[in-house]
């Protein structure tokens, strides 16, 4: 479904992404791992259009999306969550999710019908599926960190994506919250047939859930494969797992 070919991105002299390759098949749960500064978030930003690549291609269902802006890429079926909790702090949880639902239904520009009566069911359904229904009237800015990350995912779900990209979905979470969140992600993938691409630090999380793992170092791809292959790859062990 998604293919990244030899992607490069530099900021002045700093090569943030230096020859990255990635393949994501439909229906898979794919993880990207790598130490801090390896370029994971930059890679994600390139895929979803926040950044433009210097060289290389990004293909979504064989269509080159390398140079498209974020809102166009979103319409093509990719939704994402961000590493730093990126919600709408002054709006309620309900309205946070409703924004993306409205956008998906192309209703963002309706001027004279009250928003409180539109897209209620869909928004409610998403809130239920992530378990935030009882907090739906809370101000997003007042949520706990863990809940904000879940709200992140809920907002992304509002776009009815085919491919859901999650940037460090469990960052800053306690072990309990991490387990719950990963279980949620796996359930969503199964229930809604989503393809999920995420990046993570936590090795246990990754090896327990992902079907395909891509390892990054210094902006480039070392290897991509199923967990067993990756675990036994010598380069990976040296570069990354050796320190564990």
């Amino acid at each position: 479904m998604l293919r990244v070919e030899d992607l490069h991105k530099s900021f002045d002299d700093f090569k943030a992404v230096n020859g990255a390759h990635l393949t994501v098949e439909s229906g898979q749960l794919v993880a990207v791992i790598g130490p801090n500064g390896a370029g994971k978030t930059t890679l994600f930003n390139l895929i979803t259009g926040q950044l433009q690549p210097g060289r290389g291609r990004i293909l979504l269902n064989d269509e080159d999306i390398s140079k498209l802006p974020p809102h166009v890429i979103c319409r093509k079926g990719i939704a994402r969550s961000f590493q730093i909790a990126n919600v709408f702090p002054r709006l309620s949880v309900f309205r946070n999710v409703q924004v993306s639902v409205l956008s998906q239904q192309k209703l963002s520009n309706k001027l004279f019908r009250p928003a409180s009566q539109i897209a209620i069911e869909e928004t409610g359904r998403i809130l239920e599926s992530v378990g935030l229904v009882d907090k739906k009237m809370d101000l997003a800015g007042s949520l706990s960190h863990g809940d904000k990350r879940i709200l992140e995912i809920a907002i992304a779900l509002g776009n009815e994506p085919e491919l859901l990209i999650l940037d460090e979905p469990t960052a800053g979470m306690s072990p309990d919250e991490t387990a719950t969140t990963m279980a949620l992600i796996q359930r969503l993938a199964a229930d809604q047939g989503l393809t999920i691409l995420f990046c993570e630090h936590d090795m246990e999380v990754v090896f327990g859930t992902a079907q395909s793992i891509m390892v990054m170092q210094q902006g480039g791809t070392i290897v991509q494969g199923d967990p067993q292959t990756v675990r036994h790859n010598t380069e990976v062990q040296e570069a990354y797992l050796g320190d564990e």
Partner: protein
Amino acid sequence: MFGEMIRQKSFGVSLAVFLVLLLAPSFLPRFYIYLLAVIFVTALLAMSLNLCVGHGMLFQFHHGVFYGVGAYTAGLLLAKTSIPWWMAFVAGPLAAAFAGLLIGLFCIRLNKLYFGMLQISLGSLIWAIAFRWYGLTGGDDGIHGIPIPDFIASTTGSYYFVLIVLGICLFLMYLILKSPFGSTLQAIRDNPERCAAVGIHVRHHQLKTIVIATFFGGVAGVLFVVVEGSIFPDLLFWVLSLEIFIMCLLGGWFTFAGPILGAAIIVSLRTFVGTYTEYWTLILGVILILLIFFLPEGIMGYNYRQLFRSRTKYAHDSQME
């Protein structure tokens, strides 16, 4: 939706205030009727600005241009042509919205603060033209004695006209802010990057907001002509724009009705202070500094936080957040 509206406390209060205002000309001296009318016009102007600033976080620092364009268009048409008055009244906001679109197209490509910077400069061109084109606009004298239709020319007549137009515009703005358009706008205010990631074309949405806001600004300009019967370049001068901005801040820029309160306070202050000193600008600057340091969310913003301190967890969808 109307049921929901009527059940809120604020609706009852607003209705009561509206009734009092309707009856005001029967018990207030003429000067105060005039002053109220000026407050209404300014309130509409401030509300229109706040669509951009408080609800959209667009730094519209020269909103006065559109007020002036609306006033000048209507005023010039009334004074120099024989177009029916209602056409002139409609032409004003349309011209203002058009100017808003043009200037917006340039400014929208810059981010945040620089948007405002460029708008000040581009808007000042319009001021400079109005100031120098003596033949058309009367230069820095402006034009006085503009013919206003009789039924709204008197103090009381203009008062009621302005009050009714203000009421209609406020109602429309309320609907717009409650609609998906308004919801999306507030989301863009909070996090434009996130909005792009959920498929919203942020710049387009912001441009539409600017056009709507400048349209209402133009309406305020027309109302100014009705109340004062004249036009002059000060309307287009950017210190006025700054004053309106301060009104929004003072009243509470994240609330719905904050700008109205801000307008009332500033206009009243300006009128009464003006009898004692000519250094109103200095006082305005000091007010702004006090706001920045002590009351950055304005009076109504502060009230909300005080009243709902224990309940800030809950969003008040019934009030504008």
